[in-house]
């Protein structure tokens, strides 16, 4: 029945014109718009097939279906690039179908748009998404619930594609909440583990706090613009007196939830409970960048509120720093990467906050390459060690899993900012834009950004050294399986992963190395093509000060120094004098403890917010108001009135005849009164 209703819905959503006729003149246009509908619909079909039949299908069939319905959208996106190339003109495809919600005076349609910003996001999502699907076939090969995993993964792709394709706030919100759902299901994939179930729930609820802001922002937009359509709102923004600061701050609250920024970042580290490919796809490459995408998409509104922009920049800078400091002391390899993701998202937020939206999106792209790579490589390490995630039980792995080592090295160098790798260009662009923004906030953000670059380099090389160099701490013949689900691979000892896992690693490694060339700034002899490509969408809010290439090179040098310093420090602490780090930790016990406990933020949140809310509910609301006043009043009423009580006692005889009698008596009284009055 679910399938049937879905088919019905498909008929409902697809515009009738497309089904019935297409006039010759508009035929090619029709084709293109149909393509837009297909992009998200295909993964959804994959979800439905695997979700309903997957339990009974063999694993090969499940993975074939999942891969097929992921590669097709990627091919369609490739076709869109061809259309763009053939046309020459900026791409602006639109597909409008029936209304989704419609009341007199307000309606929201099913409508998709593809412009250059969307095209970039589509390419990242389908490209990296497809690679991670391939990797998962190997990684999840021995897991229970293989079909469930791929069904959810396809569901995620569906919602993520809707998110970037939508041409209104509300449809974006559909994708926004939908990816949250997929994330909830995938984080809690090992649902018999309490920690996984908790993490999934936490992610959903914390994101809901952000969504609360997003919803309020939309209500304000409706109240002032009467529409949630991007075009309508943005084209009238300049001439409308709306509370833009409030709207933008509420939108930013939504973004802090999805993109794991202060104050709502706490869910992301816990989300590492999910299978590693999920961490790579959802919690590094795509979903968590939705907040950045949304802010960039709404840059017209944000540009109208300098206050909101400054807040966004400060949040981004603070998050980048905070998460990096925590990342320095984590021992779980995935946790380090999780805090690193939070920190890198901080950079992107910072970019948006200084009005450098295209630099933010550029970092979204390069980060998708190197962070997906890092997670998948970490997954390969974990896989090789039979489920071990603790870096203290690794070491000297470079010879034993060479492909993983070499590919992961590419990722480490890229994120740390090794010159001319992808991360170098995108991070530099952000720092450059912050520095030249001409505001105090910009300078401040730059300073924090450079310091964070140093920290980033340190904790990434710490991870690299601890995992691949030094003495081996690997527990051979893994008997202690703390990752129950990996039982089946434990017995083989340390081994390199199969090709189905290493091939995506190699492709991503290449991208992590060369992915930056599309955004080489003029100072290094490039043309910054990436930024120009986004110009039709993100025409910059502030006029970029024509800074000399001298400034650019000087700033790059500073950033490179930060990189070198971090590398040097990590080398000193973990290779040349292993053990010093423990001494330092002992000497700086309070600070180390603070970092190790992640600033006690979770504890404070639990105690101050969750705890007090539950106490208010238990004592004040349930105890005093509900039991005392609401319930008590009726008690008084019935016991206080003696006559009433005796009546009720007789009425509760349970005898149907007496009830009928009462009813008749009542009716008679009513009629008597009526006639009397008349």
């Amino acid at each position: 029945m679910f399938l049937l209703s879905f088919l019905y819905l498909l008929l409902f959503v697809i515009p009738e014109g497309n089904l019935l006729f297409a006039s010759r003149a508009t035929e090619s246009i029709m084709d293109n718009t149909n393509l837009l509908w297909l992009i998200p619909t295909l993964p959804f079909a994959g979800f439905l097939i695997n979700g309903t039949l997957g339990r009974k299908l063999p694993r090969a069939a499940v993975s074939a279906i999942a891969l097929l319905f992921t590669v097709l959208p990627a091919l369609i996106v490739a076709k869109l690039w061809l259309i763009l190339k053939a046309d020459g003109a900026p791409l602006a495809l639109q597909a409008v179908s029936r209304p989704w919600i419609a009341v007199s005076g307000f309606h929201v349609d099913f409508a998709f748009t593809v412009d250059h910003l969307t095209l970039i996001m589509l390419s990242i999502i389908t490209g990296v998404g497809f690679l991670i699907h391939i990797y998962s076939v190997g990684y999840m090969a021995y897991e229970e619930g293989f079909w469930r995993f791929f069904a959810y993964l396809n569901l995620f792709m569906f919602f993520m594609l809707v998110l970037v394709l939508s041409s209104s706030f509300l449809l974006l919100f559909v994708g926004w909440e939908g990816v949250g759902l997929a994330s909830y299901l995938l984080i809690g994939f090992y649902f018999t583990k309490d920690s996984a179930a908790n993490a999934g729930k936490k992610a959903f609820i914390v994101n809901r706090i952000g969504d609360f802001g997003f919803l309020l922002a939309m209500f304000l937009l409706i109240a002032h613009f009467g529409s949630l359509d991007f075009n309508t709102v943005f084209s009238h923004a300049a001439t409308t007196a709306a509370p833009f600061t409030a709207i933008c701050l509420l939108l930013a609250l939504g973004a802090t939830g999805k993109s794991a920024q202060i104050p709502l970042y706490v869910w992301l580290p816990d989300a590492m409970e999910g299978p590693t490919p999920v961490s790579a796809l959802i919690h590094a490459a795509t979903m968590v960048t939705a907040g950045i995408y949304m802010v960039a998409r709404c840059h017209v509104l944000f540009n109208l509120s300098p206050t909101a922009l400054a807040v966004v920049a400060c949040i981004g800078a603070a998050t980048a720093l905070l998460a990096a400091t925590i990342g320095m002391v984590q021992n779980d390899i995935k946790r380090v990467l999780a805090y690193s993701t939070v920190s890198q998202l901080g950079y992107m937020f910072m970019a948006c906050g200084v009005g450098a939206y295209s630099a933010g999106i550029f970092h979204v792209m390069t980060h998708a390459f190197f962070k997906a790579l890092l997670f998948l490589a970490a997954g390969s390490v974990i896989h090789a060690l039979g489920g071990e995630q603790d870096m203290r039980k690794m070491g000297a792995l470079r010879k034993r899993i060479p492909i993983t080592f070499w590919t992961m090295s590419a990722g480490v160098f890229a994120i740390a900012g090794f010159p001319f790798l992808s991360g170098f260009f995108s991070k530099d662009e952000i720092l450059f834009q912050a520095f030249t923004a001409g505001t105090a906030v910009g300078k401040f953000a730059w300073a924090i950004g450079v310091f964070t670059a140093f920290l980033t380099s340190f904790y990434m090389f710490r991870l690299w050294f601890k995992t691949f160099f030094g003495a081996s701490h690997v527990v051979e013949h893994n008997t202690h399986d703390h990752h129950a689900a990996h039982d089946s691979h434990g017995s083989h000892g340390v081994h390199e992963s199969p090709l189905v896992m290493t091939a995506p690693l190699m492709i991503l490694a290449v991208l992590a190395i060369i992915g930056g060339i599309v955004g080489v700034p003029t100072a290094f002899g490039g043309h910054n093509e990436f930024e120009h490509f986004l110009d039709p969408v993100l025409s910059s809010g502030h006029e970029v000060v024509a800074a000399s290439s001298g400034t650019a090179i000087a700033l790059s040098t500073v950033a490179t120094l930060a990189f070198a310093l971090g590398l040097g420090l990590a080398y000193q602490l973990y290779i040349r004098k292993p053990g010093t780090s423990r001494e330092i930790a002992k000497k700086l016990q309070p600070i180390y403890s603070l970092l190790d406990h992640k600033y006690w933020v979770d504890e404070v949140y639990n105690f101050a917010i969750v705890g007090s809310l539950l106490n208010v509910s238990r004592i004040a609301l349930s105890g005093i108001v509900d039991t005392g006043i609401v319930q008590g009043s009726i008690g008084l009423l019935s016991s206080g009135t003696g006559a009433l009580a005796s009546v009720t006692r007789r009425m509760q005889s349970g005898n149907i005849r007496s009830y009928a009698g009462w009813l008749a008596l009542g009716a008679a009284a009513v009629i008597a009164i009526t006639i009397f009055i008349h």
Partner: protein
Amino acid sequence: MNPDHSILTLLLLTPLVGAVVLALIPEREADIPGQSGSKIHAIGALVVTLLTFLFTLHLPAHFNYAAAPGSFQFEENYSWITSPAIRYHLGVDGLSMWLIVLAGFLAPIGVLASWNTIKQRSKLFYILFLLQQVAMLGIFVALDLFLYYGFWEFSLVPLTLLIATFGRTENRRRAAIKFFLYAFIPSAILLIAIIWLYVQTNTFQLNELHGMALAKAISPNSKAMLLCSIAFLVAFGVKVPIFPLHGWLQDAVSEAPTAAVMVLAGKLGLYSILRFSFGIFPDQSHYVAPLLIALGAVGIAYGSLIALIKTDLKKLAAFSTLAHASFVVLGIFTFTVAGLDGGVFQILNESLVGAAFFILLGLLYERYGTYELRDYGGLAARHPWMVTMFVIMTLAAVGLPMLNGFVGEFLILSGSMQSLIAHHILWTVVGTTGVIFGAGYMLWMIQRIFYGSLGHRPKEVTGWDLTAREHLELWPFAALFLVMGVASPLWMKAIDTFGAPTVDINTDITMNMSPRPATQPTFVDPTLASAALGKPAPTTDKGARY
């Protein structure tokens, strides 16, 4: 004979005759105590309710969307008693149509949900169930105040008896009495108000009263009229229940059998407010709107927060019902199109989600014999289908976009932001917190029942996954959640024929009462909106465009 002119009577007669027929079939108790007796009454009730459902579908199939605003369709209007002038006057409009279909839809599912759980006195059970169905349909179609009051009072009897006789624990009598008192006392006052109104106007006809109210012909601005309107509102508000009139809810809900819980709260009271409070007392409703907006917003947060700490599943669901009904209260008293349309849509959602919720809880109880959340845990692996249905229901309840709950909640809250009623914007914020807390208690519940390690009750008892009958009960809900969430205009088209004119009337009142000018959104092209609703509009291009 044109079926349009007798369909409503047919709708009322079908379950009534069904009840009489069931009464004539003798009951055969099971030979072994504890075993269920013959299923003949259940089968009979199923046939009758299915037939009724079939008849209700006549309404959307023949509904005239172009009818004049405020007019009724499928009308039947005969004189019944000449003095006082009581008429047998039935009719349907955009407000009641889908509610009637909803009532028709839920009834056979209610019968299925009682299939195995009602083991004794099943004859009485199904007779009461069908009588309750008559009363509910009567409430939705009656356009004569006196006739309406008859159905309204009558609906109390089967419900009270169902709770008192078929309640779960020893507490059932007390819960039934509480429910009855809560409902009966305000209803008695309602009767006085109706009679007072009759004395003033000499009519029980809703449309006449509505006309007089608009013409300000019924003792305008008098205290008595305001009191009268409050009597109406309180009587209806208790049945919703509107915070803080919900004292009866948790006991009644935890006692009542599933089929009775499905009709206990929500739609009857809310419909009555929309039909009678708004119809007869537009000025007075407007006057109390700021208070009701506040109560609605507080009810959302309050219900959700208490649900967060409840470990009795039925009580948790009761407070969730309070929160969902409060959304409707908040929406309709904003007197905006979005609020009203969304509110009426949310009545449908609330009933469907609530029904699915209680059915699912009933299935758990049937297997494990407890509603205590702490006894559960780790059931996901044992009941893969049940957890799927629970999660789908949860997602609908927490308002995930593309499922039905979202459309209602979104419209309601956005309406409250636009409302011209003098209210503090804070109430919108308070109401919106419901999306956070709602996710909180629902996901917490899912986790406690299904995830983690096996709880102690499931360790003692082995349950089984959904049976074919249970699949049949639940899949229609899942399908409806999805279709209503994606294709909401199918429903909204009719609802809007009620919502939009109601706002027009009340906007005039707003203009007269408050000096604040209307902040009409500037860029809304009315033709677009009307096209969106499927009304003819020449300028729009519905196809894809470049």
